[in-house]
């Protein structure tokens, strides 16, 4: 059977803190459970009290009429990062949901150090929400990377799963082509002509590759959504975020980074750009 047809996201995990954002975070998670028909694991790092239990129960009551065991709550003390990672492993979670904090000026969002660590260490996919809200925000336009990478197939499958469940109308596959691949430095008219030509060829080559990957994806997933392919020349990771911001995408889906080293944090690339300045909601597929 086509791997794309099996449901990828069966268990969603969300860490809850008793902050003003609690309600919005839980509402977002419950909606996801609704759309994906999956299970939810709530993890709270801290003491289990009657009061807290009551608050959670109250918030969940709006969604869950038939207590069929879809929602599970874990209470545990310890280091937040470790607790969440371990809980994700023990419950076989497929997706960890994290909420971002708005920056001082309202136009930018960033995620805290705990969330960053979770993103780096998570055993499964991670969804970062820039602004968890009480009400449903339609997810109309999804931007996904189409890197030349063996993970891309899986990422595209996940994107179509999201597109289908969230009723998205457009999916743009962005191929970031590194400037290094062009190999021509523009210095005068002649080299400009050459680099334009090479870029054109590279774009076509990449588009063919993406089309090949798309062929593998069952047509019932593709029928409801308009697919567009956009080549971009620029720094990997950075340009796709900037692009998502320009086109006003509602969700950006990316491959998980290969491996994040200490150097990456000093000379940021790929994921680090996205994390330092979230352009929109971001899903990192593992």
């Amino acid at each position, binding site marked *: 059977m086509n791997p794309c047809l099996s449901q990828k996201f069966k268990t969603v995990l969300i860490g809850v803190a008793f902050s003003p954002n609690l309600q919005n975070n839980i509402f977002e998670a419950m909606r996801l459970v609704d759309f994906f028909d999956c299970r939810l694991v709530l993890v709270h790092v801290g003491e289990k009290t009657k009061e807290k239990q009551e608050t959670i129960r109250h918030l969940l009551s709006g969604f869950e009429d038939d207590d069929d065991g879809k929602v599970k709550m874990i209470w545990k003390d310890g280091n937040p990062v470790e607790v969440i990672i371990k809980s994700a492993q023990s419950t076989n979670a497929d997706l960890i949901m994290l909420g971002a904090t708005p920056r001082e000026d309202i136009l930018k969002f960033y995620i805290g150090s705990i969330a960053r660590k979770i993103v780096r260490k998570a055993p499964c996919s991670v969804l970062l929400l820039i602004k968890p809200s009480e009400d449903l925000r339609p997810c109309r336009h999804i931007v996904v990377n189409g890197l030349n990478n063996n993970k891309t197939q899986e990422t595209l499958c996940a994107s179509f799963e999201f597109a289908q469940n969230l009723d998205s109308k457009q999916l743009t596959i962005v191929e970031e082509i590194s400037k290094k691949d062009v190999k021509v430095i523009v210095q005068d008219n002649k080299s400009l002509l050459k680099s334009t030509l090479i*870029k054109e060829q590279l774009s076509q080559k990449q588009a063919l590759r993406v089309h090949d990957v798309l062929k593998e994806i069952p047509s019932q997933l593709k029928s409801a959504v308009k697919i567009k392919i956009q080549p971009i020349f620029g720094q990997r990771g950075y340009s796709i975020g900037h692009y998502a911001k320009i086109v006003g995408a509602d969700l950006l889906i990316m491959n998980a980074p290969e491996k994040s080293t200490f150097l990456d944090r000093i000379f940021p690339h790929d994921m680090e750009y996205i994390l330092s300045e979230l352009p929109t909601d971001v899903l990192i597929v593992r």
Partner: protein
Amino acid sequence: MINFKNTSMNFLSNLPKNMFSGFVVSLIALPLGLGLALASGAPPISGIIAAIVGGIVVAIFGGSHVTIAGPGNGLVVVLLGAISTLASGDLYQGYLFTLAAIICSGALMLLIGFLRLGILSDFFPSSAIQGMLAAIGISILAKQLHVMFANTDAQGDTIELLLTFPSVVVGLFSQATASTIAAASIGLISLLIMRFHGAIRNPYLKLIPAPMWIVVLVIGYSYYYEFFSSETYPIATALLVQLPDSVLSGFPTPDFSLLFTPQFIGVVLAITLISSIESLLSIKAIDQLDPERRRSNVNRDLKALGLASIVSGLLGGLNVVTVIARSSVNVNNGGSNRSANFFHAFFLILFVLLFQDQLRRIPLTALAAILVYTGYKLASPSTLKSIAKIGNEQVFIFFVTIIATITTNLITGIFIGILSTLIIHIILNKSVLLFLSNAIRPNVLMFKEQAQGNYFVSVKNFSSFMNYYKLKNNLDAIPINGDVIVDFSLCEFVDFTVQEHLLGYQEIFTRNGGSFDINGLDIHGTSSTHPLAVRRLLSFSNAKKTKTNLTKRQKDLQNVAHDFEWSYNPVKLYEVNPLYSFVFFKLKKINFIHNQLIDEHTNFNVFDTEYTEGEFISQKQLRATFLSIKLKKTIPNFTLHKEDLLNFLYRFSGFKDIDIKDHPDFSKRFFLMAENKAEIEAFFTDALVLFFESNPYYHIESNGNALLVMKTERLASVKEVKALLDFGIRLHKIVSKLKYEPNLLKTL
């Protein structure tokens, strides 16, 4: 493919033109070469050597097309300082040390060229460079004013020289000898020739450049005394140009004994810095004059200039840079390729070989007058005036750089200029973080829009001289006949340097048949009313947006309005309630509309709008250009678009998909949605369907008595606005011709 036969034919057929142009340039290069060398404290012939070597080497190895290489104005100050200080006052020994420094700096420039560091010149803020050039001009002026009045032993720094100048003039009238007065008069008359040469109307007289007029006249003056007058030539030998007895032998040997001393290294760095900046600025400016719009390969040019400086230094010449005045004369006289540069060198050799005796008759005061005029041009009040218009902060940077350069040295001066620019930017934004946290992050995204074929360049965070090279690299990679849209709506701060450079790009693209639009600056606040004023997203407290302070795009829109005899209103309007009757805006919040083009008669209205989507405002902020057409009759509500991205919105408002019978192609290409199928079938006649099928795609919506037309969900370029207007006018014509009667339908 390049047709070699064709290009070589072209080269041959252009040869006479270039030979002539090279000849005219050599007429200026001769007196300027002598003068610049004298002003630098070097033997006069060293300037000619630099021009000859530069002409030959750069013509062979260079990467630009119509530039001329030779001794430069900017270097005078550095070289004079080096020659007079390196050997603690011994000018000839100092000259030998400086030759070694010139050779080293040539090697450094060669290295810069090989490392492709030509971009380094992009890190200098415009106003600081202007200030540095003005300071160089003042320094030249201060020293040469003395020489022009026959006071050749004036000593001291620029300020002292300026302060002692009045006493020199007074001394001239009270105690001068006849020889001094004659020399000073020649200086003064030469200055007047420089100043009023531009007023000559006769094309043949005009052909000879002002410096050559001076040379010809002063030589003629000396021959007058030799052949016709009984008196002796009144000008003392000390005030005449000294040339070696034989120009072909006795080249000086550069002295490398100071090689690793800090003083020597400082001189090498200063020469390299100033000659690179002067060359790169000149190349950039001359590229815009090139009638064939070729792009110079600056790194190759730097390599050629470095090599030329090495050769020139070995032969006892000054260092070689690209010079703007001579290059522009070259372009104006029909120079079309590098052979003109070569011929300029060739004619200089002829002059020096054939007219050695005549050159020795030129008084120093005449050459000083040429330099005084050059210095004045560099520091002319009109530069200050144009900078003052852009904003007070630019004036501040300009003066800080001038004062720092004059009181310290060129390198310290320019770095203080850069620092003050940075501090001003931080003060203007009241934020260090904006610059610190985004300094090394990429901030430019360029991509080709698949549907329209436009190149869209979006700039984020801040855009100033510090990260301009990133924007430049992206812009350089776009074919120059392409359609470019540079969008600054995500950018919080845009400085003068960037805007000035963009204006240069705008010219390059429009002249090559492309288009270059700068969007998203209209919403920024400014510090003055100049179109290139520094802009930042939050408005400056002391300056309100005014009608006179329009960006380039706004001015272009104004012109479009003028062409259609419509009115233009750039002011932001916050009362936009009628727009909400369009379903498109149903779930959006319109912040304001601005840049309206209004036609009162037929109720056409083009406007930019900023709106947000979603309940929480910051969720998404969008800007787009719309055309609304008010109709005189009622038509059905409908929407016509290509992408089904927005369908949910319309379904939500009770719209349904509708296929028009007998037009399967139309139905396949467009999504037509409306409330009432019968109305639509009556309204969409064959003529209307054909119109939509045969025209480019627009998103169109009707709210019953008005139409809303949009191309894409972003601000339209001026070119796109014109296309939008054209489409709208034709659409309006078709719609008003339709015989659609809503009342008739109801009775059916």
